[in-house]
């Protein structure tokens, strides 16, 4: 008797597909839990953590934002090997505004996000028309080029960087600002990607010829997706400038490019929730592994390769599947 595995939707999933879910607490809980629990955890956690783990949470949120930024680009068909570009742009924008003009963080943050995003987009515009590989190459090269540029011309503080930025009013503001931004980005952009607009973006990735023959200017839409992602990344960078009260060449470091990508891939590319999940896993993990120093980046690399080859769906999809479906062995019908 031959058997095969069969996957079916769980009963509760089928029951909750309808407005009748409102009649049962259990079913409401089933629907609400995946959304509410992370929300609650993120919002309440800061109150219980000590100073050290608060910093870790901060990191999680920052890299979560960068991972979401990477994922949005990836869903539109652009694989970036240089999120650090956006991060660094935002960091320098806010750093410069604050250092030379004394502008308050509450203004530099949004302005740096938009402005940093804009500059990054403009830099990458020429490459948007080309095949994906070229785009990836240029994203890899750009941050490194900017580092050498700063080193050579000594502008913006050169190798020393700029320090003495205005910090944010308090640790609590820092934490809740970034966590709030992460949650807003997660839920907000998920909705965006689920809308018709997001469909067009995903279509560009899957079959851009088809999208062109619908009369849509794919480069304009790619630029939009790029701008959105770049701004998210720039916001993260601007934020960190005010947390560290410093900006310098390290903001273009490879770490800021690789970790978000690894987080998105491990967590599950194609869903912003996966990117966030990936960040939640990798950052604390890397903190725990702090003792082994440089070996961390080796692990990121290993994870990257393992997941992209063996488990391209990522962890989130696996969880999503388990939550919604169950498996059983059935006889093979003759």
């Amino acid at each position, binding site marked *: 008797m031959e058997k095969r595995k069969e996957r079916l939707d769980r009963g509760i999933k089928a029951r909750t597909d309808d407005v009748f879910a409102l009649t049962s607490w259990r079913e409401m809980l089933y629907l609400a839990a995946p959304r509410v629990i992370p929300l609650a955890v993120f919002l309440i956690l800061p109150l219980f953590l000590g100073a050290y783990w608060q910093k870790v949470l901060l990191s999680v949120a920052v890299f979560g934002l960068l991972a979401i930024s990477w994922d949005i680009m990836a869903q539109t068909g652009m694989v970036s090997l240089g999120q650090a570009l956006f991060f660094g742009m935002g960091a320098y924008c806010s750093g410069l505004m604050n250092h030379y003009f004394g502008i308050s963080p509450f203004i530099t943050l949004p302005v740096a996000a938009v402005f940093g995003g804009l500059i990054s987009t403009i830099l990458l515009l020429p490459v948007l028309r080309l095949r994906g*590989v070229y785009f990836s190459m240029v994203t890899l090269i750009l941050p490194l080029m900017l580092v*050498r540029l700063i080193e050579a011309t000594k502008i913006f503080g050169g190798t020393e960087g700029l320090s003495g930025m205005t910090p944010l009013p308090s640790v609590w503001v820092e934490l809740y600002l970034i966590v709030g931004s992460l949650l807003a980005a997660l839920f907000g952009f998920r909705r965006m990607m689920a809308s018709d607009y997001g469909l067009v973006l995903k279509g560009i990735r899957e079959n851009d010829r088809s999208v062109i023959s619908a009369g849509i200017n794919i480069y304009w839409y790619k630029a939009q997706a790029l701008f959105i992602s770049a701004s998210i990344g720039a916001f993260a960078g601007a934020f960190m400038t005010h947390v560290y009260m410093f900006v310098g060449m390290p903001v273009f470091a490879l770490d800021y490019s690789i970790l978000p990508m690894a987080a998105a891939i491990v967590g599950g590319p194609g869903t912003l929730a996966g990117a966030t999940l990936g960040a939640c896993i990798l950052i604390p993990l890397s903190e725990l592994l702090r003792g082994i*120093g440089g070996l961390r980046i080796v692990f990121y690399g290993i994870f990257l*390769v393992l997941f*992209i080859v063996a488990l391209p769906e990522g962890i989130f999809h696996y969880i999503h599947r388990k939550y919604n479906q169950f498996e059983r062995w059935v006889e093979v019908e003759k």
Partner: protein
Amino acid sequence: MLEGTIIYAIINSVVLALTAIGFNLTFGISGIANFGYGAFYVLAAYCTWMMTNLLKLSYPLSITISILFCTLLGALLYRLVLIRVRGQVLSEVIATFGIGLVILELFRYLGFVGFEYTLPVFIDKSFIIAGTYVDMQRILLVGTGTVLMVSLWLFTHHTSLGLAFRGIAQDERTALTFGIDADKIATLAVAFGAGLAAIAATLIIPLGSISPDEGYDVLIKALAVSIIGGLGSNGGVILASFVIGFAERFTDAYIGSHWTMIVNMASIFLVLLVKPSGLFGKQKELEERI
């Protein structure tokens, strides 16, 4: 001064060409951009170092083993990893980049950084050519490099395997109908590319020292040369190498050494804006697809 700059520009160009030729070969034949290319380069150097310094093997033997090892590793890279993501360019990029990252950072972590990590030159001698000191290693480099490129040209134009390579590079579908096994060719493409990286490392590393950062630099240079010359075109690689090589040297001599990398990057941008498929780009229809 001028003659000296020219001579060193030529040397620099050959160095660049040697560095890029493996990457370009792999991409041209199989369409795989091996973002771990720099790691193979550095790996070969470290292996040779370890064999000569730790296992006390002879230099020529270590070199040979390193080159063969890298070639084999390249083949394994394809067979074990890349074959599973074949065709998904994005995954290929990430996978090769990840592996390169692992190799390079592993060396960094294990502490293989420092001035003692060097490889000796083949023959310790120097000459005076046109009023400048040129050491034997550099001369050997230019000589071997030229021989290598000529052999490569002969190989791809006059042997059946080489012609198969070119066939796949030009039109994979048609080549397949001739019974050429795409996977086998791709394995060879990646392996050859890695092997060429190893050879390049063997010749070039003695001019400096080995460090993991070198791996990233090599990747960037190979990318730069390939983009400017046109991905997949051997002739383009050589031309681009000379263009960049001369630009670098002259910038270094007359403007300042910090600016050389910037000249590199600026040229890439210029090319991408004006003629994206590169100076000799075979992929002419980069922007247009059917």
